């Protein structure tokens, strides 16, 4: 099996186009700044975060009972509830529903869960025409890409590129990149798809155990257009998306949009409780590794995530390397603590794609200790992940030097001596990654220890 590219290699590739990487960084920083302005207006912002985190603690500790309560209520409301232990089972459920109802055409609003399950490809292979109706998702669907961001899936593309894609797929004028004009073209195109669709697939932002209802947040109203027009509504929900009571919803809705884009609320917050007369509503509850993650003490609270994407917008590495460098459905900091739990070998470099700066943890609306979990995944990966012989050897050696003061002093002296007498080309060789673009520190005449012995501690 070919090894997955490391995050470092993918990041280096992205950074080669420095104009684009700067633009990407600035674009996402702008979103982070809007989040700050918006959060500042809420005096109880930090209390909201704490509350949101605590409610999710409760959910994760009582997930079994809450899920059963949710199922019972949803069924009583007339929703058909299905359970899927993994992506395969989820996709099979969707296929069966489509076959049973003789659906050929379907529309889909944004759902990162269906991305995680690879639903589009699965259905396309079976001959279905799956149309993503979120504008960003439609763009990348035309472009045969996956989302590079969970909230803004096409954030990696510039206006002009989108104009080119639309010219190719929607027949807009060549070279046209006016957002209004392009959006109008997308709107006309999607209207047709909405009208033709027999089924609408949506994700779920929040499932409410108390009522058996669920909430879908969009900015474009595309989930509503889809579900209102189609006879069949299939909602796909990760089992961790549960909240106990309808009263808890306000806590999350206030945090979600502000954290995501700086809006006070998403343009459409749609509540679904039961199918309309003569129509059908299905709810698929998906595990796909979530209960395994729940069982990992150090990593369980990664399941609190409400998919706002704030950790991506704030992450200085994500901003400069783009979502694709993570090679995982959920990129960025949160992806780097979720993905290793799904496939440790494939995602083994992700927890190292961080300086542990901690901005992700501080921006997180549900207070996931993301950077601490990155540190903990590192400890797991060096033991259970792909072997890294030379790094391991270097760290072991370093550890030995650091545990013996006299050896440390001696090694320090040798290093400083060799640095000061070696020719430049010898020091700045191709193995010296530090020195590729940086100078090493100048070697001082004496160490602090030398100075201290001379100036403060003559008798020792």
């Amino acid at each position, binding site marked *: 099996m070919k090894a997955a590219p490391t*995050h*470092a290699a993918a990041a*280096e590739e992205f*950074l080669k186009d420095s104009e684009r*990487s700067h633009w990407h*960084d600035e674009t996402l920083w702008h979103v982070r700044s809007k989040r700050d302005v918006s*959060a500042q207006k*809420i005096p109880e912002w*930090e209390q909201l975060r704490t509350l949101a985190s605590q409610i999710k603690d409760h959910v994760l500790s009582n997930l079994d009972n809450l899920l059963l309560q949710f199922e019972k209520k949803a069924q009583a409301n007339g929703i058909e509830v299905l359970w899927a232990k993994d992506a395969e089972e989820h996709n099979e459920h969707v296929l069966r529903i489509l076959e049973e109802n003789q659906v050929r055409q379907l529309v889909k609003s944004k759902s990162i869960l269906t991305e995680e399950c690879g639903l589009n490809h699965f259905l396309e292979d079976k001959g279905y025409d799956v149309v993503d109706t979120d504008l960003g998702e439609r763009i990348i669907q035309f472009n045969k890409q996956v989302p590079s961001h969970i909230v803004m899936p096409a954030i990696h593309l510039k206006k002009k590129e989108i104009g080119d894609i639309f010219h190719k797929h929607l027949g807009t004028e060549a070279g046209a990149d006016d957002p209004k004009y392009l959006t109008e073209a997308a709107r006309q195109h999607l209207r047709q798809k909405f009208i033709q669709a027999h089924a609408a697939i949506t994700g779920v932002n929040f499932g409410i155990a108390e009522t058996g209802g669920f909430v879908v947040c969009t900015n474009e109203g595309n989930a509503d257009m889809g579900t209102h027009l189609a006879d069949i509504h299939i909602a796909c929900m990760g089992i961790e998306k549960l909240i106990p009571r309808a009263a808890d919803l306000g806590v999350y809705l206030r945090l979600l949009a502000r954290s995501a884009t700086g809006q006070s609320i998403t343009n459409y917050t749609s509540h679904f409780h039961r199918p309309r007369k003569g129509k059908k509503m299905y709810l698929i509850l998906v595990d796909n590794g979530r209960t395994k993650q729940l069982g990992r003490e150090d990593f369980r609270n990664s399941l609190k995530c409400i998919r706002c994407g704030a950790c991506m917008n*704030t992450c*200085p*590495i994500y901003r*400069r*390397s783009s979502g694709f460098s993570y090679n995982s459905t959920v990129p960025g900091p949160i992806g780097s603590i979720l993905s290793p739990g799904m496939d440790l070998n494939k995602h083994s470099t992700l927890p*190292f*794609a*961080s*300086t*542990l*700066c*901690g*901005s992700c943890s*501080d*921006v997180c609306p549900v207070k996931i200790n993301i950077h601490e979990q990155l540190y903990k995944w*590192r*400890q797991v990966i*060096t033991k259970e992940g792909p072997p890294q012989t030379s*790094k*391991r050897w270097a*760290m*072991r050696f*370093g*550890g*030995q*030097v*650091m*545990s*013996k*003061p006299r050896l*440390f002093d001696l090694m*320090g002296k040798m290093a*400083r001596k060799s640095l000061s007498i070696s020719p430049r080309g010898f020091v700045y060789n191709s193995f010296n*990654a*530090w020195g590729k*673009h*940086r*100078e090493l*520190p100048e*070697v*001082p005449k*004496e*160490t*602090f*220890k*030398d*100075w*201290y*012995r001379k100036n*403060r*501690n003559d008798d020792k």
Partner: protein
Amino acid sequence: MKVGLFIPCYVEQFYPKAAIATLELLEKAGVEVAYPLKQTCCGQPMANSGYEEFGQGASDLFRENFAEFDYVVCPSGSCTLHAKEHILSNKEGEPKLYELCEFLTDVVQIKELKSRFPYKVGLHASCHGLRGLGLARPSELMVPDFNKPLQLLEMVEDIDLVHLARKDECCGFGGTFAVFEEAISVQMGKDRIQDHQEQGVAVITGADMSCLMHLEGLLRRDKSPIKVMHIAEILNGQEPELKNQ
């Protein structure tokens, strides 16, 4: 009050001036400081690379070296944080760990400094001190504003502190990250420098020499006139080694 000075491994070897300034600054503030000579490192490089177990020897040595002290003071937020989280935990009977700036503002409660620094200075907020130790309000948190390193710098006469466009973005050092994610580390460093440069600073300072070592590496490669200085050096009234000033 028995205070032990912990000097990070790379500061001991490459930046003795930062360590000397730290010692002198504490002495001037009337603190009796001792520097145990058998110290090496806190073990963070190993631990952050995923090899906590190889840092164990360094941790044990750290504990031994400072067992008899009431306080351990260290001129690095990052090393202090690591030692706090993985070596000592400020439990009863254990020495209390402080980063230099917070020791001066919170324990010594210093009110004035007799130093002058008539230069344009940019303060780099190092992440581990900022978010890990809480040296200042991180821009993400909606809590009342405070900034301990800045509070100290403002006591320095004639200092001209600039406002940065991104006041607490990471510089990209990140320990072994600087080597294993070289490309992005360098880009982050360059972007930080750009921000300071646009404000026309003569000196970039901060409470972590490691970030400054990374930035200095980039500045020197670029033959930039901007210098880096540890915050202790400025607080202690050291002159920058500027050319053409």
